[in-house]
C-alpha cells in the first residue's frame, strides 16, 4: 500500500486508494424513528460504532434523496470529498450498496517534528472505474447468492444478512482498489483466437458431452484463460469469466508442469492416460472420503432465475465449465462418468488446440516487441484485448505502463462515454508519450505511443499506419489459415473508416 518515493531529498510517502467502508442498506426497512439500525444489512468494517454506521448510512440516503429532486431517474452516483470518494449503487429496488474509497495521498514529512502534511490527490481516481468495481461486487455476490429479493423471500432479512456477511467478509479482502483501471470499466472477455475447424471440433465436443450427460444445462469452454465458447448468456458469462480468471484459475497451480513424482501428477486411469481433473468439487475421485459438492451459481436472474452447480473441469490448458441444475444431487457415479467421458476427449482436444495455436503463431511470425501498446474493447461482444496488462493474478493486475498514462486512458474513456458519436482523441502526455483513443460504433481502441518530438499529424499518421499494418498482417494470416484471425481486433470496419476525417481534441 505504501510506496515511498524520493522527492526533493525528503522522504515522501505515497498512499494508493484504499477501501474505507462498504455497506448495504435498504431505507424502507427502518423508516420509523429510532429503528434506523434495521436499515443496515451489512457494514464493513464491522467494528465501527453503531451510531456512526447509522450516521453514514443516513448521509448517503440523504444525498441520494436530495439529488433525486433534480433528476428522479438518475440520482447521484458518487460524492467527491477532499479525503474520500463515495459511490452509490442501487443494486435492486431500494437496496443500496455504498463503497467509500479513500483518495490517494502523499504524506510529506515536516521539519521540527511537526506532524507531516498530507496532500490528498482527489482528482486521481475515476468515477467510472470505481463505479464499475462496485457494480461488479454486486454481480459477483449475485452470481453465488442470487438476488437480495430472493433471499428475502426465502428467509427474510436474517438470511439476507447472513449471506451478505458470509460473502463480502471474504470478497472485500480480495478487492485491490489500487490496481483498478480501464479494464474494470470494460469488464470484458478475452477470446482465444482459433481457426474454424478447431472451433467446430470444440462445438462438436460440447454438443456430444451435453447429449450423453443430459443433466448438463450449459457449458463454457476456455483455453489459456481465454474464452472460446459460452452456452451462458453474455452478462452471466462476463461475471463467471471474471471469477474464473481472477479467482479460481490462479488458485490452482498446473499439475501438468509438476514433476513425475509430484502428488499433483495426474493418475493413470486404466491404460488411458488423461490429464482431466476437477477444479471444483472432488480433488481426487479415488478418495473414498471425497465430497461431491460444487459451488452453486445463479444465472438468468432477470427471467428464469436458475440455480446451478458449477463443475469446472480442466485438462492441460483447456478448462470446461459444466452447469447442472442445483435441484439435482451430484453423485460419485456422475462425477466418475463425467471424468471418464470428458477426460480423454478434453486431453486430446487441448493438445489439438495447442498445436493449432503454435502453428498459427509460427505463421504470424516471431513475437516482436511492438513499438506501441494498446487496449481494445468491443461493447457488442465484450471482446477485450490488452497488451498493456500482464497476466492477471488473484492478487494484483500488473500493468506495463505508468499509472498516469492509465489515468489518461480512463479520462478518454469518460469523454467517449459522454457522446454517442464516433470520436478520436489524441493526447500528449507529460512524458514523451502520446495517447490515442479511437471510438467507432461500439468499439474502442486506445494506443500508447512513445515517440519523442512527434507532432500531432505525425502521431495521427503513425496510428493510421499501425492500424493498417495490423490489419494487413491479419489478412495475410487469413489467407494462409482459413478462418484464423486475430480475434476481433483491427478487423473492424469503422476504425479504418475513421482514419479519413480527424476530429481531434487535444
Amino acid at each position, binding site marked *: 500500500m505504501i510506496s515511498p518515493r524520493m522527492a526533493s531529498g525528503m522522504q515522501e510517502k505515497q498512499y494508493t486508494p484504499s477501501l474505507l467502508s462498504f455497506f448495504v442498506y435498504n431505507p424502507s426497512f427502518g423508516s420509523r424513528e429510532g429503528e434506523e439500525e434495521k436499515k443496515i444489512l451489512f457494514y464493513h468494517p464491522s467494528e465501527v460504532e453503531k451510531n456512526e454506521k447509522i450516521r453514514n448510512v443516513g448521509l448517503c440516503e440523504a444525498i441520494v434523496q436530495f439529488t433525486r429532486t433534480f433528476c428522479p431517474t438518475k440520482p447521484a452516483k458518487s460524492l467527491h470529498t477532499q479525503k474520500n470518494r463515495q459511490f452509490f449503487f442501487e443494486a435492486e429496488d431500494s437496496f443500496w450498496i455504498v463503497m467509500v474509497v479513500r483518495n490517494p495521498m502523499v504524506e510529506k514529512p515536516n521539519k521540527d517534528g511537526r506532524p507531516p502534511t498530507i496532500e490528498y490527490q482527489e482528482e486521481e481516481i475515476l468515477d467510472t472505474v470505481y463505479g464499475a468495481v462496485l457494480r461488479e461486487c454486486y454481480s459477483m455476490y449475485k452470481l453465488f447468492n442470487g438476488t437480495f429479493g430472493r433471499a428475502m423471500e426465502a428467509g427474510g432479512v436474517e438470511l439476507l444478512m447472513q449471506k451478505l456477511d458470509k460473502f463480502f467478509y471474504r470478497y472485500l479482502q480480495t478487492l485491490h482498489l489500487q490496481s483498478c483501471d480501464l479494464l474494470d470499466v470494460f469488464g470484458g472477455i478475452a477470446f482465444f483466437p482459433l481457426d474454424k475447424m478447431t472451433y*467446430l471440433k470444440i462445438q462438436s465436443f460440447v*454438443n456430444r458431452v451435453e447429449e450423453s450427460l443430459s443433466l448438463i444445462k450449459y457449458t463454457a469452454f476456455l483455453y489459456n484463460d481465454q474464452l472460446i465458447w459460452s452456452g451462458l*448468456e453474455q452478462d452471466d458469462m462476463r461475471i463467471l469469466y471474471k471469477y474464473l480468471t481472477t479467482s479460481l484459475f490462479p488458485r490452482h497451480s498446473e499439475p501438468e508442469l509438476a514433476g513425475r513424482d509430484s502428488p499433483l501428477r495426474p493418475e493413470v486411469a486404466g491404460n488411458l492416460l488423461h490429464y482431466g481433473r476437477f477444479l471444483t468439487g472432488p480433488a481426487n475421485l479415488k478418495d473414498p472420503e471425497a465430497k461431491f459438492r460444487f459451488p452453486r451459481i445463479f444465472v438468468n436472474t432477470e427471467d428464469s432465475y436458475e440455480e446451478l452447480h458449477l463443475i469446472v473441469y480442466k485438462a492441460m490448458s483447456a478448462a470446461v465449465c459444466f452447469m447442472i441444475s442445483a435441484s439435482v444431487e451430484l453423485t460419485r457415479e456422475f462425477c466418475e462418468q463425467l471424468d471418464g467421458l470428458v477426460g480423454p476427449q478434453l486431453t486430446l482436444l487441448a493438445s489439438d488446440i495447442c498445436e493449432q495455436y503454435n502453428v498459427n503463431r509460427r505463421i504470424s511470425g516471431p513475437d516482436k516487441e511492438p513499438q506501441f501498446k494498446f487496449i481494445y474493447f468491443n461493447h457488442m461482444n465484450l471482446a477485450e484485448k490488452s497488451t498493456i496488462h500482464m497476466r492477471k493474478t488473484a492478487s494484483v493486475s500488473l500493468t506495463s505502463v505508468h499509472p498516469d498514462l492509465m489515468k489518461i486512458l480512463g479520462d478518454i474513456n469518460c469523454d467517449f462515454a459522454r457522446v454517442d458519436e464516433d470520436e478520436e482523441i489524441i493526447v500528449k502526455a507529460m512524458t514523451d508519450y502520446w495517447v490515442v483513443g479511437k471510438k467507432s460504433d461500439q468499439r474502442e481502441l486506445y494506443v500508447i505511443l512513445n515517440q519523442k518530438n512527434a507532432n500531432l499529424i505525425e502521431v495521427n499518421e503513425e496510428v493510421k499506419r499501425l492500424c493498417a499494418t495490423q490489419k494487413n498482417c491479419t489478412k495475410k494470416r487469413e489467407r494462409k489459415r482459413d478462418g484464423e484471425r486475430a480475434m476481433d481486433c483491427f478487423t*473492424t470496419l469503422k476504425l479504418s473508416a*475513421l482514419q479519413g476525417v480527424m476530429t481531434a481534441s487535444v
Partner: protein
Amino acid sequence: MSEEHYYLELCENPVQFENASSVNNVFFDEANKQVFAVRSGGATGVVVKGPEDKSSVAFRMDDKGEVKCIKFSIGNKILAVQRTPKSVDFINFIPDYPHLEFSQECKMKNASILGFCWTNWNEIVFITDQGIEFYQVLPDKRSLKLLKSQSINVNWYMYCPETAVILLSTTFQGNVLQPFAFKSGTMSKMSKFEIELPVVPKPAKLNLSERDIAVANMEGSCKKTNVLKLNTTGKFALNVVDNLVVVHHQSTQTSIIFDIKLREPDCALNVHQPVLPPRSIHPYRIPLTGPSAVPSQPPVPCELYSSSWSVFQPDIIISASEGYQWYLQVKLPPTVNLLQDKGKLIDFLLRRRDCKMVILSVCSQMLNGEDKGSLPVVATVFDKLNQVFKEYLEAEQTYTVAMESGPSRGSTARERPVRTQAVIDQSDMYTHVLSSFTEKKDVSHKFIIAVLMEYIRSLNQVQITVQHYLYELVIKTLVHHSLFYMLHQFLQYHVLSDSKPLACLLLSLEGTYPAAHQLSLDMLKRLSTANDEIVEVLLSKQQVLGALRFIRSVGGNDNISARKFLDAALQTADQMLFYTIFRFFEQRNLRLRGSPSFNPGEHCEEHVVYFKQVFGEQALMKQATV
C-alpha cells in the same frame, strides 16, 4: 411377413418362353442373354427371346439332329448351332446374304467340341477337350478362317462375355485356370492361376467343376484374395447384382449377400461375412395369362429355389420348367432396418446404384423419432457422405483443369467423372433432410443446432465450401429460440462464413438484436465487394459522415452521388452536418471540374437553395478563392 422383410426380388416383367419339355429344348446364351426355345430340333420353330423385345427373333430351321448348343453372334448376325461333337453349323442372318447353312469341323484330330463362344459379330472360339480354336466367319463366302489355335488339355470352360475372357480348367484336378482374352482378331494368353482346394482328394480326381466357379464383372478389381464366409454347407448358386455377390442356398431356401468392398474391421483382411441375415427371395406369383386365364383367378405362387432353376451371371435366374427368365434385383429400403450399425449401413448403401433416396431417408430417420441416432453416429454418417461428395468434387475439378489445359501430351481424352447417386450434396441434404428437420416441433433446438453444426463441421473437415442456405438454417433456428449470443459467437469465430445474403439476413435482425448491425457491417467490409451496400446501410442509419469517411477510405468518393448524401444530411436536420457534406462536394466539384458548382445532371438544385437559405449566398464556395 411384411414387405420390409425381403431384400431380394425377381423382376416384375420376366422374359417368358415356352417351358422345356420332351419336344421343346431350352438354351440360354449368356453372352447375348438370349433364351432359345427349340421345338423339334428347330423344324417347328425356334423362338429367341432377349432382354429387350427387339432382340427377340423367331424362325425355323431344318431338323438335322438334336441341338446341343445354339447361339447368335453379337447383333444377331450369324447363328451357330452345334449338333455333333465334331462340328458347328452356321446360318447367316444378315439380309441379302445366302441363308444356306454351312459347317466347320474342329481342326484337331480326335478332339471333341465342348462348346463355342462368339467374341464378336463374326469371330468365334471353339473350345475342345484338347485346346481352343479361334475363327473368323466369312458369311459371304460361307466359310471360316482359322485365326489362331492353342493346344491345351481342357476339363471345362467358362466365358465372361463382358471382358471376352475364356477361363479353361486344366490339369488333372481341374483347379488350375487358364484365361485367354480376345479382342478384334487377336487372342492373348493371360497368366494362369490356381484355386486352392480345401482338401486334396486321394486318389486324385477332377475336383473343381464349372458349377463351383462364377465369373462376373464387378466394379473395381476383386482379387482372388476375397473369401466369402458362407457358414453353411450344401448346394449354392451365385448371382452378382449391383456389385453385391448373392449366394443362393437351395436347402434352406434363402440367399445371403456379400459386399466385397465392405471391410470387416475385426476380421482378417478380405474375409467377408454376409452383410445381412439370410432371407428368401421375395415370394413371386405367376400371373396366369393366355386363353386359360380367368380374370378373378389369383396368380399362382411360384416355387422359389426350385431344382429346375438355372442361375446365370450376372443376375439371371431361369426356370426352364415354367418358362421364365428373371432378373434378380436388390431392394434397398428393407436393408435399412436389417443393418443396425448406421455407419456400416451407409457404407453399404453408398456402393449401391439407386441409393440416393434411401440414404436420405436413413438420414431423416436418424434425426427423428424413436430411432434417433446419437451425435457421434450422426457425425459418422455425415463424414461418410461428405467423403464421397468430396471425392466427386475433386474428380470433377481434375477433369475441368485437364480440359482447360487442353488435350496435351497425347494422353487420351479424360472421361468426365460420373455423378453417381451416392454423391449427396448440400442441396440434397437441405431439401430432403435438414429443412424439414429444423421445423420439427418435437425435437429440442439443442439437438437441431448440434446436428447442423455437425454437418457444417463435416463439410469443413473435407474442405467443402458450405452453402449459405445451411448457415441460414442455423441462424433461423438460433433466432427462433432467441439464442443471439450463440449466434454472435459463431459469427465471431467465422464458423458462418461471410456472404452478402448472410450479411443482409443479419441486418434484418437488428431490430431484435442490436449487435447484428455491427456484425453485418463487418461482414460486408470483409467481403470487400459490398461497398455500395455499406454506404446504403450507413446512410439509412443517418451516419452520413461515417458513410463518407468509409467511401473515401476505399477510394470511391469521386463516383458517389452527391444528391444521395445531401438528401441524407438534410434528413438528419443537423445543419452543421449538412454544411460539412455540402462543402465536401463543392470541393470535389472543384477538384474534378475546376468549379465548385454542381452540374445540372446531379440534381442538387434544391440543396443549393437550402444551403443559401441557411448559410447565406456568401457561404457558397467561390471560384475566385482557388
